[in-house]
Every structure is written in structure tokens, then in C-alpha cells.
């Protein structure tokens, strides 16, 4: 047993001079890292229970707490790192696969940070977005490639079904079950106010959220939880989840203890049963089967809803995307491997898939080579961290971006990567009522609206700098990007020149 003892990764540091023993930290910590010692009338801390979520730090009225990374160390080594060693101890002790959450912390290249954005000087004018018109409205959906006219010569203006977004950002799929009801409601309210969409994820749609339908994307995943004709018709679009960037090729699993009350009702499975999403859709073993699922959904909704197919960014992504584009899908969502998750095997999350930047660039280029880029819209996701990432994604070729980790952070998440434990002290990734109530949907909405409003302003400012006054003129406009510190191969895949060229 002593072999498995792992020294805590974090230490709770309490400034005893400031601590008033109000016991707020104890009350706030669902992991029970803080306790009151009656004998000494002082607070004690159990470091091993701390997940570094900062709830106690933020709530301490005396600012008496901080969390520091332990300086405890193994004999340092670049190969056998602390994580490499402790993972083995954990697995040797338990026999289990390592489970974790949120996006990979590994030090992979972030290509966003190696792409610089252009601005106008002299040869064409930059634009002040506060005082001049600047458009960020986006339509997602198939476009006609030919014009039809009626007998009198008027253009037939009936479009394929579209999603209209006031700004090219959507909240990506996070299921009710993995997220709390209040988190879902915050997203729904914010999407409505912002004129964008949030995504139900694969856990069905809570009946109280149906009236946000015009701003909702409903998801159909392999588990088909909560999927029925009313659900399919409730949203602005339907997303078929084929994969997720954080765990390509892996299904999902909501543990039985989270399938309670409304989660059970919404997923339409009995309380206390496991909610398993198989790795594949068992009616899709090949690309032509995807076409079948796309059309069952279109038939079931009278061709009124655009169908999104979400796929994880994997090695052969551009060929897959080409197949998806020919499946009748209206929109393809590509999720890069740095994307988040409520729970995923650590080895999958940290080792499988490719970055969204390369996947997006390669898909956009491939669809253009094949002349079919116009027949499908692209949503890129998987670690879009700020408005400059949005601008870069659109310049590489995306129509819009999905954000999820950013949205969670806006609602109060501190990225402790412990969602799978179900004790989210911020009331986001938990079903425990006393924790859920910590997130006020109105407050959550306000912060999400703030974030997207701020990003949209920044996007406009960058567009203005480039002399572009409408987002569609930025889409695929790769001349607006230059690489920095990239190899020629990377530049070729990204389809951009190096800075200075």
C-alpha cells in the first residue's frame, strides 16, 4: 500500500493571521478539503482532496487562502516526469484506465499562437468599428450553386434551411447531465440574448428549455438519449455527433449516480441507470450510412432543419469531411484534439487526434479543390480561446466557431479538470442540488453575454484593421494571416505565407 501513496499535487496555504475561522471554506468545498478542528479551534486542510478549483480562495472573505503547486518532487527527469511516474503508480494500484476531464494540458503546438493577423496601411483604409458599419452576421447551411428563376424571371429565393447567427460563435455541445441545469439555462438564455445558438449535447433537452428552441441545436449521438420527433423539431438545427475532439473514436458514459430526477426524465431512461453512448452509431458503419441518418432526420423534420455532422479532427480528416459534405449534411463541425470533455480516458485525450488549425486548413482546402466548399458550412472548435483565435479560424476557412471551455470559464469554471468527479464547486459540472444552486442562470447568462459581446467587438476591431467590414470577406481570406516560426510543411498545410513574405 505505501507504494501507492502519492504526495498531493497542490497545497492549501492558509494565512493564519488573516483567517477568522468563519468556516466558509469548509462549507464551500464539496471535496471536503477543509475542516474545523474543535480541539484547536482552527481550520485544517487535507491537501490530497484539493482539486485546485479556487472556490475557497474566491469565497474566503479574509483572502486568507491560496493554492500552490507542491514543490515536492521526484528526482527530476525530462523523460520520467512526475505525471509519468504517478500514472504508473495509480494504474499499478488500481488496474484502471486513467480518467480525466477538460482539454489536454500537454505541451502540443498551439498554431493559433503562430499565426499573425494583418492590418491595412496606406494602400487601403482601416475602418473604425465603433463609428462605421461592421457586419458579423453569418448564415450557416447549404448554398445553392445555381440560380433558379420562375416564369417571370424572378429569382427563386427559397434557401436550404439555415442557421442565422448575429456573430460567428456558437456554444458547443455539452449535455444536460454532464452540466447542471443552471449551466444549461445560462447558455440558453445567453444564446437567445446574443442571437446565436447553444447546443443541447447528447442528453436530450429539458422541457423547460424548449422555448429557447430557435437558439438551440439539438444533438443526436449514438446513445440517442431523449431523441424523439418533438425533440428533433424543437431546435434551430440538428447535430449528429460522430466524434468529439477530446476523445475521437470513444463513446460516452454518464454514470448511474448522475442519472437522477430531471436528468433521467430528459434522457428518457430510468433513474439510476448508466447512460452509455456507444463508440459508433450502430446504424453508421460507412459513409453511405451517414447519408441515411442525415436523411432520416431530414424526413422526420420535413427538411426544415439544417443537419450538422460533428466529427473529431483525426488524421484523414479532409477525406472524411469530403464524404460528409456529400452526405447531404448542411454543416460540418470539426472538433480539434485540444477540445474539452466532461470525462475522457486520459491516454485518448492526450494522444489521439490532431489540432483544429491543421484540420480546418486542410478540410477547407480540400473542399475547395473539389469545388464543394460552397455546399457546406464549416464550424471549427476545439480550443478557441479568444477573439483572435476566432478571427484566425475564419481566415483559415471556418464559417463560425464553437466554444465550450471558454463558455464554462465565463460561468465560473477555473479549469481544475475534475468534472468527472461530479462535485463541481462552481455548480457547473455537477448534479448535486446544493452545488447547482451556486450558479445563478441570470448571472451565468450575463457573464456569457459579456464575453461574446466583448469578443465580437474585438473581432470587429481586427476586421476593421484589415479594412474588412463584413465577416464573409474574412472567411478563407488566408492572405490576412502570416505564420511565425513554422516549418514550410506547416505553412503549406495552413496555406499561409511566412511573416515577412
Amino acid at each position, binding site marked *: 500500500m505505501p507504494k501507492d501513496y502519492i504526495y498531493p499535487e497542490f497545497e492549501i496555504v492558509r494565512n493564519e493571521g488573516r483567517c477568522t475561522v468563519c468556516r466558509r471554506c469548509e462549507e464551500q468545498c464539496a471535496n471536503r478539503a477543509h475542516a474545523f478542528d474543535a480541539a484547536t479551534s482552527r481550520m485544517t486542510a487535507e491537501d490530497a482532496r484539493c482539486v485546485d478549483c479556487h472556490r475557497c480562495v474566491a469565497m474566503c472573505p479574509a483572502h486568507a487562502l491560496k493554492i500552490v503547486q507542491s514543490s515536492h518532487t521526484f528526482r527530476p527527469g525530462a523523460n520520467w516526469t512526475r505525471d509519468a511516474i504517478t500514472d504508473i503508480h*495509480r494504474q499499478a494500484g488500481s488496474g484502471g484506465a*486513467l480518467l480525466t476531464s477538460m482539454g489536454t494540458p500537454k505541451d502540443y503546438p498551439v498554431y493559433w499562437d503562430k499565426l499573425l493577423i494583418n492590418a491595412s496601411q496606406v494602400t487601403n483604409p482601416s475602418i473604425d468599428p465603433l463609428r462605421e458599419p461592421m457586419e458579423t452576421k453569418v448564415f450557416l447551411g447549404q448554398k445553392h450553386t445555381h440560380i433558379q428563376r420562375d416564369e417571370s424571371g424572378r429569382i427563386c429565393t427559397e434557401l436550404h434551411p439555415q442557421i442565422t447567427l448575429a456573430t460567428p460563435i456558437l456554444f458547443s455541445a455539452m449535455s444536460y447531465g454532464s452540466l447542471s441545469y443552471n449551466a444549461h439555462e445560462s447558455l440558453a438564455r445567453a444564446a437567445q440574448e446574443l442571437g446565436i445558438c447553444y447546443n443541447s449535447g447528447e442528453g436530450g433537452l429539458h422541457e423547460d428549455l424548449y422555448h429557447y428552441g430557435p437558439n438551440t441545436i439539438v444533438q443526436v449521438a449514438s446513445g440517442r438519449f431523449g431523441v424523439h420527433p418533438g425533440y428533433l423539431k424543437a431546435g434551430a438545427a440538428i447535430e449528429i455527433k460522430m466524434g468529439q475532439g477530446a476523445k475521437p473514436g470513444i463513446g460516452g458514459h454518464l454514470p448511474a449516480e448522475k442519472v437522477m430526477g430531471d436528468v433521467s426524465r430528459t434522457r428518457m431512461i*430510468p433513474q439510476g441507470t*448508466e447512460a452509455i453512448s456507444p463508440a459508433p452509431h*450502430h446504424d453508421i458503419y460507412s459513409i453511405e450510412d451517414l447519408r441515411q441518418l442525415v436523411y432520416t432526420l431530414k*424526413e422526420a423534420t420535413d427538411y426544415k432543419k439544417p443537419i450538422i455532422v460533428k466529427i473529431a479532427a483525426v488524421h484523414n480528416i479532409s477525406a472524411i469531411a469530403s464524404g460528409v459534405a456529400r452526405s447531404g449534411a448542411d454543416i460540418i463541425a470539426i472538433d480539434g484534439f485540444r477540445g474539452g470533455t466532461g470525462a475522457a480516458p486520459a491516454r485518448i485525450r492526450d494522444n489521439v487526434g490532431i489540432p483544429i488549425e491543421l484540420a480546418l486548413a486542410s478540410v477547407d482546402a480540400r473542399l475547395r479543390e473539389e469545388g464543394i466548399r460552397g455546399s457546406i458550412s464549416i464550424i471549427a472548435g476545439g480550443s478557441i480561446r479568444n477573439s483572435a483565435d476566432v478571427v484566425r479560424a475564419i481566415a483559415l476557412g471556418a464559417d463560425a466557431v464553437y466554444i465550450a471551455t471558454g463558455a464554462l470559464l465565463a460561468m465560473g469554471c477555473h479549469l481544475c479538470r475534475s468534472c468527472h468527479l461530479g462535485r463541481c464547486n462552481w455548480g457547473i459540472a455537477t448534479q448535486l442540488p446544493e452545488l447547482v444552486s451556486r450558479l445563478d442562470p441570470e448571472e451565468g447568462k450575463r457573464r456569457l453575454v459579456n464575453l461574446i459581446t466583448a469578443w465580437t467587438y474585438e473581432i470587429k476591431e481586427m476586421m476593421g484593421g484589415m479594412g474588412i467590414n463584413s465577416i464573409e470577406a474574412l472567411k478563407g481570406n488566408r492572405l490576412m494571416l502570416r505564420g511565425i516560426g513554422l516549418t514550410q510543411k506547416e505553412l503549406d498545410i495552413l496555406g499561409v505565407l511566412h511573416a515577412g513574405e
Partner: protein
Amino acid sequence: MLIQAKDLPFRELNRQINAAGEQSVTLQGVMGQRFIASGLKGKDVEINGIPGNALGAYLDGAHITVRGNAQDATGDTMNEGSIRIYGRSGDATGYAMRGGSIYVQGDSGYRAGIHMKAYSAKYPVLVIGGAAGSFLGEYLAGGVIIVLGIGHEAEGKAPVGYFTGTGMYGGKIFLRSAHVPHDLPPQVDVREAAAQDREEAYAHVAQYCAYFGGDPHQLMEHRLLVLTPSEESSYKQLYCAQ
């Protein structure tokens, strides 16, 4: 109302079925048209010919009769209503269905009843008159699957393929057979049907006979095995927190 389906593209055929309003429809000359009656509510649809894949997907209360064989993914994610097939059905019959019933007179392909689930008053029923293919009831989470194995009684094996009930974590599978499939996973328990089980199965067998003929009592005079997920061994304990 009679609809001549011959040479109609699926979209047009379905438009005509929907345009019939609450009137029941009979389709003649169906030849592979997909998505028939997708999401359809309360009316009867009779199909003569071979309906294409995803027949009755998301079905929401309509009653479908197929005078012939059905192809793959029949009743995909079906919610309510019934499908009866005077013939065989292809792969993934009843995939993820949550309610209603599917009765197949003959055999069924691979992965019949995969990931069926029950919820509240919704309890899906899949009855296969002949034999089922491999992966019967994979990921089964709720509802009931009955394989009668009519005509396969003398084969000396259960009327199923390989890997029956793999990943099953809810619901129930009846096999009208004396033979336990040899490769049941440890997570699936098998037992002889008790009186209560037989009573439950009888109702569905009687319905089968009402549709396709036969004597339910006679059919039930046969050994009946019940497969359920095991309480003890599940798929837990596979993970440890990093």
C-alpha cells in the same frame, strides 16, 4: 388511400404519405424507398414490396405493415406505434427504439434490438419469429426482445448468432430455445423462464400469432431462456481518476 410507389423517389413518396393527412395509406410497388413513415404519427401504412432502409425511423405512433421483407435500420429510434413485417428484417432492426413494437415474422439480421431502452410508460418490444443474427441486443438498456426461433428448433443451438447481449445493461431477452448461447459475456445472466416471465412473454407471443398465425400455447410449450444483465459483474471498475 392507395399510392403507387413504383419509380417514386423517396422524398416524393413520403410527401404523398404525409399529404394523406390522417387517412391510412396503402403503398403498392415499393422498391427500396428509404425513410418511409419517418416520424409519422397515428395512421396505418401498408407497404407492398420492399421498403428501403430506416423504415419508420423516429416513428411516433403510426402502424406499419410490411407485406414483404424489410431492409436495415427498421424502426431506428422509434418512439411509439408498431411495425409488423410479413417476412424478414435486415440489420440493426429496432436500433435505439424507446417505445412501440416491431414484429418480424421470419429472421432478423445482425444487431437486432441494439441499444433499445425503456422509459416510464414506454417499453419497446421486438419479436423475431425466426432466428436473429449476431450481436442481438447489444447495449440493451431496456424493453424486451423475444426470439422464437420457429423452424430452427432442431438445430441444436440457440436461434442467434455470436455475441448475444454484449454490453447489455438493462432490459430482457427471451430465447425460445433449450440451448444457452455459448459465448454470453459474463455481464449477462441466463436463467430458465419462471412463471412470471412466461406470462410476460405469452402476451407478445399471442400478439405474434394474431399477426402471423400459429398457436401461442403450442409455441410456449417449449423451453424459454431469459437473459438479463448481471447484478454483480458490470462494466464498472474500469477507470481510476488521474
